[in-house]
């Protein structure tokens, strides 16, 4: 066979009379891979025999870096832990700091945080749903959803000054109040997003190709999902009513009605449908939040924030992100900088553990779809 210079064949791992096993690096260069992450797949034909996750290509040492920065400075790093859904990180970190400080933030700040979280969820779901479409080769879905995601980013830009990394939360609240007329635009956007749902249903969920490709893929039972650290929509897709917003209410969620619907089935199709259900509910939650948005301060006066000193102690704070439970375990030794920040990302259990079980025997074409259905996002594995 002719190979141009610099190209290599796959490594042959072993061989017997019937078949040979090859090593395939399914990494960032693969169009179905979500970022800088990789699986080394041992292949027999197109079937996977064994998988070795290859993390570390995006490792930025955030947990170490956060120990060397002031409490507030860390907020410029934190959204980068999850690119499509950055705000849960900011909120979780701020909540942990506030818990150690023992302060209660103003009610309006809690509402604004919730609004921002839901918007971030919508943006991330659009990327996630689009990602499922993309992994299946349905690129129009992806492009159409990116348009709507951009409209959400426009609103983020008007509120926070940044499109992708908002750096909007600080210990004590948020950095700026909501500008005039912004909530009206937000409600308009909610209407538009809701009106788009039928189109997406037609494109994705009623599409027989999607249904057949996703149905039965990556099945996980409720009991197994619960005890292997699966959270968020993936867990709800098994019929488990678990949602951090309801179980451990934070921000304004104790005052807001959340009517999560559950899909059932525990497979990739159920997970995709669950995301769509959650999306619809998030739009409604935003409407409720805007309606109940109270007046008052948008932040608590904590003094000079760049000289914030947090008393000795530790706290774990978690947030329901679009992919599941995002948590920050923050330890302070009473100084100007955190002693340790430990991040719980939602992608680790599926991406690093379930992959061993699920990918075995799977066809190579399904790997990207499986990853998209579990919303495995490398930046929170590689912090």
């Amino acid at each position: 066979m002719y190979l141009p210079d610099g190209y290599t064949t796959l490594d042959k791992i072993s061989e017997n009379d019937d078949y040979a096993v090859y090593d395939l690096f399914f990494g960032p260069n693969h169009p179905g891979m979500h970022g800088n992450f990789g699986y080394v797949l041992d292949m027999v034909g197109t079937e996977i025999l064994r998988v070795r996750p290859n993390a570390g290509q995006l490792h930025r040492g955030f947990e170490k870096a956060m120990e060397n920065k002031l409490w507030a400075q860390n907020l410029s790093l934190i959204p980068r832990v999850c690119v499509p859904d950055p705000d849960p990180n900011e909120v979780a970190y701020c909540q942990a700091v506030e818990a150690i400080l023992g302060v209660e933030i103003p009610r309006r700040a809690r509402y604004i945080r919730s609004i921002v979280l839901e918007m971030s969820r919508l943006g991330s779901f659009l990327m996630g749903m689009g990602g499922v479409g993309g992994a299946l080769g349905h690129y129009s879905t992806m492009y159409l959803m990116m348009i709507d995601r951009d409209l959400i980013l426009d609103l983020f830009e008007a509120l926070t000054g940044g499109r992708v990394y908002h750096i909007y939360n600080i210990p004590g609240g948020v950095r700026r109040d909501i500008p005039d007329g912004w909530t009206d635009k937000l409600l308009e956007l909610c209407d538009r997003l809701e009106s788009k749902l039928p189109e997406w249903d037609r494109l994705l969920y009623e599409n027989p190709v999607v249904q057949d490709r996703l149905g039965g893929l990556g099945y996980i039972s409720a009991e197994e999902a619960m005890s292997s650290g699966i959270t968020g929509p993936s867990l709800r897709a098994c019929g488990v009513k678990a949602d951090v917003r309801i179980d451990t209410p934070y921000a304004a969620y104790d005052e807001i009605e959340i009517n999560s619907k559950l899909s059932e089935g525990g497979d990739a199709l159920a997970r995709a449908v669950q995301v769509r259900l959650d999306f619809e509910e998030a739009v409604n939650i935003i409407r409720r939040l805007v309606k109940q948005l109270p007046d008052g301060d948008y932040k608590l006066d904590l003094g000079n924030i760049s000289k914030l000193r947090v008393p000795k102690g530790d706290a774990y704070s978690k947030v329901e992100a679009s992919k599941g439970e995002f948590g920050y375990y923050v330890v302070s030794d009473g100084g100007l900088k955190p002693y340790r920040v430990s991040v719980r990302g939602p992608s680790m259990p599926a991406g690093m553990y379930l992959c061993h079980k699920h990918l075995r025997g799977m066809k190579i074409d399904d790997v990207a779809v499986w990853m998209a259905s579990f919303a495995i996002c490398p930046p929170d594995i590689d912090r």
Partner: protein
Amino acid sequence: MSDNILARAGKMHGDKIECREKYKAQLEIKTHRDYVLNLLTWLKSERYVHLSFMSCIDWIEENEFELVWHVFSYESKNHILVKTRLNREKPWMHTAINIWPHVQPYEQEIHEMFGVYFPGNPDLSGLFLHNWLDLPPLRKDFIAKDYSLALYTTDALGLTPPFDDIDIVEITAEESRDGE
């Protein structure tokens, strides 16, 4: 939704554990290394089925590592931090993969980042770092700045300055810290 877990834990495990309520729905149980697995098994049987993740803290002044298991119950909605301390000189901990198999990558990560050894964990190979020869990087005695100042010099990278007339000033670790 309280399930009185602390009271029951106290009754069940007596003086082997030390527990308190930290915040609303956030509890803390401290125990000895050899008792952790018993405690985790008991907690799981008490429907604390969700092991959220594991973290490790380097208390360098006390010469100890602290391991924290974060467990959560979907029924009582309590979050429990199970903590234990390890000697920093020879840190090792029984693996918990028989209770929660997905703890494997967390232990692997802690092994890589702190050098805590988990006998019984089938794969403690490097996860994130490639060709790493230095101290485990999340240890407090690993100073990231010194590391990069030592590594990213033109000499260490085998580079020669491209232009003769550019002065390359190399800052030593001490100088750079003085400047802070």
